[in-house]
């Protein structure tokens, strides 16, 4: 099992506040890693450190290393990094443009102008995001006319269009109904064949269903990280057990 990313002694925060404390963990290639933990434990900050979105916030700082294919991401160009490491946020956030333009946006930024090439990328990305069959006859319609679940899948298609290697997802189904959530979960399981996925979730059952590995964060520390079945059947740390069984606090 290859490690796509390696996080080494990662500490991060804002001003005087330390949000992440000395986190070290590996993200295996073509696996789904779920990040769980109570609100304020540093989950979102953690994933935002993996594509350097954390540093764009005023007062944010970071120490330690994040390696992507053994290369320190903080030594490379952040724009190029974000092409390789895509992000899908909690609320679907399509641009107020057509479905087609949403997906073609990234490739166009990367300099692809050829209509045929763009058409192909849009179709393939929408297919990978399991949205093509629902929208192929209305690609020029405004993306905001789609349902919440479809908008989220469009955001995933948009992330896939720039051919990333890692996809980060920050609570991607928390604003969706169970049917739309189930479709996204199926999609995530399908995506891991080609990509490495890191997903933050508050939903324990979701973590159990889709994660190959699960990491439990508490007060900025990585408390336990292991195979999902082990974490949910037989956690090693009492704090993990208290959290996942709902007896935390």
């Amino acid at each position: 099992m290859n490690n796509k990313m390696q996080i080494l002694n990662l500490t991060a925060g804002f001003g005087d506040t330390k949000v992440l404390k000395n986190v070290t963990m590996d993200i295996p290639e073509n696996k789904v890693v779920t990040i769980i933990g109570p609100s304020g434990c540093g989950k979102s900050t953690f994933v935002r450190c993996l594509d350097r979105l954390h540093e764009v916030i005023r007062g944010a700082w970071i120490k330690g290393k994040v390696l992507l294919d053994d290369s320190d991401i903080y030594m490379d160009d952040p724009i190029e990094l974000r092409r390789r490491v895509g992000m899908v946020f909690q609320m679907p956030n399509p641009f107020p443009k057509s479905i087609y333009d949403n997906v073609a946006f990234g490739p166009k930024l990367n300099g692809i102008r050829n209509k045929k090439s763009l058409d192909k990328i849009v179709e393939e990305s929408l297919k990978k995001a399991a949205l093509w069959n629902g929208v192929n006859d209305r690609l020029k319609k405004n993306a905001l006319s789609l349902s919440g679940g479809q908008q989220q899948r469009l955001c995933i298609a948009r992330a896939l269009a720039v051919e990333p290697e890692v996809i980060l997802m920050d609570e991607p189904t928390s604003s969706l109904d169970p049917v739309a959530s189930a479709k996204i979960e199926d999609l995530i399981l399908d995506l891991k064949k080609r990509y490495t996925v890191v997903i933050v979730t508050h939903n324990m059952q979701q973590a159990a269903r889709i994660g190959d590995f699960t990491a439990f964060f508490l007060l900025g520390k990585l408390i336990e990280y292991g195979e999902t079945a082990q974490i949910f059947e037989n956690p090693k740390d009492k704090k993990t057990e208290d959290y996942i069984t709902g007896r935390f606090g």
Partner: protein
Amino acid sequence: MARKALEEGLNEIRNNTIKLGELTKEAIIKSVESLKNRDIAMAEEVMGLEEKSDIINLEIDEDTLRITALQQPVAKDLRFISAMIKISDNFERICDLAEKIAHITIKYKEKKFLKPLIDIPRMALVITEMIDIDLEAIENNTSPSVDKLIEKDDLIDNLYIQIYNELISFMIRDPKKIDDATDLLFVARHLERIGDIAAKTGAQIVYMVEGKRVWIK
């Protein structure tokens, strides 16, 4: 208390399993006692206990399914649920075996024993001690002493071998006694099997409490 409904549900399952365990002990004691005293009324009582054990086991089965569907237990709660499903089945199975002994009592009725019943009641006594160890562990959510359970199970196995050899020699000496001897042999065999189940129950409790697998032969 966090997750009050889950805690209450788990406690109910725990209490019901302990109730089933106590009933199981009563069934074993009464089945052997009824045989020893050829007490038909007591043997019939054992059959009533077996019926009750079916009902309690079914209740536990339904409660565990409902709590799994509604509360999605994980980690120690999930191990608890899985253990209770198996342990309540174990107790119910022991009650079935006690009922089989009660049937032999009814068959025996006025007949004289080939020999005084000494080792069979001893086996029953040791079994109740094993079930006590299991029940105490379930009640306190602590691991039972596996060594003690193995030691007692070995004692039961030795008593069974002793009874087996003795009864075979009766059969060889007097083939007319084969029918009676076989009945007693079945009683001893049922008790030996019950000892195994009581020991394995202990291993299931260890997994429930510690998440660690221990194997008892």
